[in-house]
């Protein structure tokens, strides 16, 4: 039985946007109990579909033509109050950021309660019971007590469960989920996906799942629809699209998320360029008046990096990987332990003695939008390190122009400002800045996490080629095991401040020993990992 039918939907964009329509001629069908994944990069228009269905397009955008048919009724014929009745009751939505989807000042139970009240449930006792039932159904512990909690008292995964409970209040026929797991850890994401699958099976609910992540598609989709810049590029069953994609774009996307190494791995046996031993760091923050909350960010971490090698550091949020990166580059002082840059002890060096050595180890940062000074030209940004070292202006300028070419940016970029460039291009600028001082070691802290899949591949390929040409050694920090597999010779897995396992990439994928590593591997899409076995 068809629950949703979208016919030739066109959504116009206001003049001045980068294209004429958010969606050109989108058609899809969704049956009861079926899950359709809408896949696309950012800017593909996938979120607009969800908003159009609920008639919540932001004002300048309008539905130009096409039909939205829900349960055999054309939604265009519904009045606003009729739509309001549908929302939250027959069609529900789950958004991406659970922290911001919940009102921080209201108790969690009350936010579910108001949905019930809005759709006609008058008895407060039955409402309360329903809230408790819903919270229990989505797997939250102690629902009686939890319904009195405020959002900030819950973890990200718990909040998302609350949002899902809210959406399920009236057993909707259609659930629209817009990137509901993108802000969560991989392991939490797996749990939420399990929950959604269970709900689907129990209630026969139709699920429209919007995502950019093929791991998710693999886990949950029955059918897949691929969007590129507002155009439907491909549509079909999950098995068919994932294993035998017809469109070139789909093939590109799938190739981008493969865990295949970019270049054949060569043996590494150079000297040790970076070493850490017994590295520990504890953060203590104020909690209330007298109490102090201590977090053990790093717990006796030991690792080493050889010349020409790429070492991956993989962990979820809270694992300590970012702290490790910052300690290695001496942005933070570790509490105890040794750090050696090219054989020299630097952990305890005062800043003044450290400064002349800094050119040996450089960092590439995560956020392409925050890592460049918005008030300086690109050329000036790249020249910063050289000028600090005392090189002449002319000299620094010449070198900066060379670097622009090296990282694949046009020469005209020199006089332009960061805001004129895209995320991927800004990362290139960041790489050029780091390379200006000719470091031996690069620490890349989640430097591709904020980029779309196809751009990610470009940056990874750039790093790989730069490594070969300039004989760099790289520490690659990421939360995504699959990305690490593309670039890294060895991988160290971190959890709660400790390195739980490390070893060569291929070996890790084939035969992981630690249960946490195995849990992480579970979340890498099977199609991606397939390639790795064939090494």
């Amino acid at each position, binding site marked *: 039985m068809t629950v949703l039918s979208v016919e030739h939907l066109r959504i116009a964009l206001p003049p001045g946007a980068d294209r004429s329509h958010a969606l050109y001629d989108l058609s899809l069908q969704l049956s009861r109990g079926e899950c359709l994944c809408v896949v696309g990069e950012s800017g593909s228009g996938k979120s607009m579909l969800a908003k159009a269905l609920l008639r919540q397009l932001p004002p300048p955008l309008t539905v130009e033509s096409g039909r939205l048919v829900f349960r055999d009724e054309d939604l265009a014929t519904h009045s606003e109050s009729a739509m309001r009745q549908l929302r939250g009751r027959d069609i529900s939505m789950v958004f991406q950021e659970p922290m911001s989807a919940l009102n921080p000042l209201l108790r969690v139970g009350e936010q579910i309660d108001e949905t019930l009240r809005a759709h006609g449930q008058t008895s407060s006792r039955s409402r309360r019971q329903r809230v408790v039932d819903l919270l229990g159904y989505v797997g939250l512990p102690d629902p009686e007590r939890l319904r009195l909690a405020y959002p900030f008292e819950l973890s990200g995964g718990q909040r998302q469960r609350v949002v899902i409970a809210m959406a399920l209040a009236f057993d909707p026929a259609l659930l629209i989920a817009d990137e509901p797991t993108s802000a969560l850890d991989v392991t939490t994401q797996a749990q939420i996906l399990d929950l959604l699958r269970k709900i689907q099976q129990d209630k026969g609910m139709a699920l429209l799942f919007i995502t950019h992540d093929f791991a998710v598609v693999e886990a949950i989709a029955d059918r897949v629809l691929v969007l590129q810049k507002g155009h439907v590029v491909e549509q079909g069953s999950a098995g068919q699209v994932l294993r035998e994609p017809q469109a070139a774009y789909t093939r590109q996307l799938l190739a981008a998320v493969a865990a295949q190494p970019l270049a054949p791995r060569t043996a590494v046996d150079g000297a040790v360029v970076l070493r850490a031993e017994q590295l520990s760091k504890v953060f203590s923050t104020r909690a209330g008046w007298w109490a102090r909350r201590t977090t053990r960010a790093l717990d006796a971490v030991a690792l080493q990096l050889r010349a020409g090698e790429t070492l991956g550091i993989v962990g979820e949020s809270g694992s300590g990987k970012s702290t490790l990166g910052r300690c290695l580059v001496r942005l933070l002082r570790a509490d105890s332990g040794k750090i050696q840059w090219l054989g020299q002890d630097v952990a305890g060096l005062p800043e003044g003695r450290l400064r002349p050595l*800094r050119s040996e180890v450089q960092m590439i*940062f995560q956020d392409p939008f925050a890592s460049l*000074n*918005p*008030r300086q030209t690109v050329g000036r940004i790249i020249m*910063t*390190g050289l000028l*600090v070292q005392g090189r002449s202006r002319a000299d620094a300028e010449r070198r900066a122009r060379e670097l622009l070419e090296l990282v694949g940016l046009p020469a005209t970029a020199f006089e332009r*400002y960061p805001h004129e460039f895209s995320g991927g291009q800004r990362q290139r600028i960041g790489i050029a800045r*780091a390379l200006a001082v000719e470091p031996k070691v690069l620490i890349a802290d989640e430097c591709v996490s904020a980029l779309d899949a196809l751009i990610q591949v470009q940056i990874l390929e750039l790093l790989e080629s730069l490594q070969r040409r300039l004989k760099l050694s790289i520490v690659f920090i990421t939360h995504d095991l699959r990305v690490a597999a593309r670039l890294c010779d060895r991988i160290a897995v971190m959890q709660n401040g400790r390195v739980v396992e490390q070893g060569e990439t291929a070996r890790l994928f084939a035969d992981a020993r630690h249960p946490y590593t195995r849990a992480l591997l579970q979340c890498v899409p099977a199609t991606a990992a397939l390639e790795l076995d064939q090494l």
Partner: protein
Amino acid sequence: MGVFRGFIRQPAALLGALFLLLLTVLALAAPWLTHSSPWEMNTQPMLAPFQDRAHWLGSDLLGRDLGSGLLYGARVSLAVGALASLATLLVGLLVGALAGYFGGWLDGVLMRVAEFFQIIPQLVLAVILVAVLEPSLGTIVLAIALVAWPAVARLVRSEFLSLRQREFVQAAQVLGQSPLGIITEQILPNALAPLLVVMTFVMATAILTEAALAFLGLGDPEAMSWGYMINASRGLLRDAWWMSFLPGLAIVLCVLAVNRVGEGLRVAFEPGRSQ
């Protein structure tokens, strides 16, 4: 340069800036524009505007020319506005930078002090200060700076705190830039925009505070101030309302102009707008 272009493209801001420029020129040229000192009682009292060629804005209770009063009053308002803003900037910048860059207990103490000065009634404190130290241009500027610095310090501190964590500042640290270099090259240019905007607020408040002090009789005794003029004509509201109206109007226009300039700067500084 992009900022400049972004600024002049806004009509209200441009108008405000031109007005202030014009007023400054007029104020500086006051001795040549009017041939009488504003204190000189050189004409028939209570003259209405547009009656006498030589005193086209009329005269007050004691026969003092209102036009020259307004011009000389502009000197006081603009001078106090500028000087008090500068003094506030210096104190606020110092305190805010110290608190923001070093953090820890120093930050806590400085911020509690700032909060204290923001909570207590500011004008009342200024009144007491000027009264106790005897009114003069210096004491007025001092009093205004003493009550206005917390707003600037808070802003500078929050800018420092947020910018210090920003990745481009960290990148500069990793590249080996010295703390002074980081402050001047990375932090200050980015803190400049909100700082300038707050400064226009401070200037507007300074003008209003000076007027209030003069109104209460605490103005510089040698300088004719708009606030003083309003007070002097208070009793004549019924018969000669323009005597109080004109100086007040001058204050309103001044404050509006400063405010619009601030708003224009805020918009012009937004990255991406200046192209």
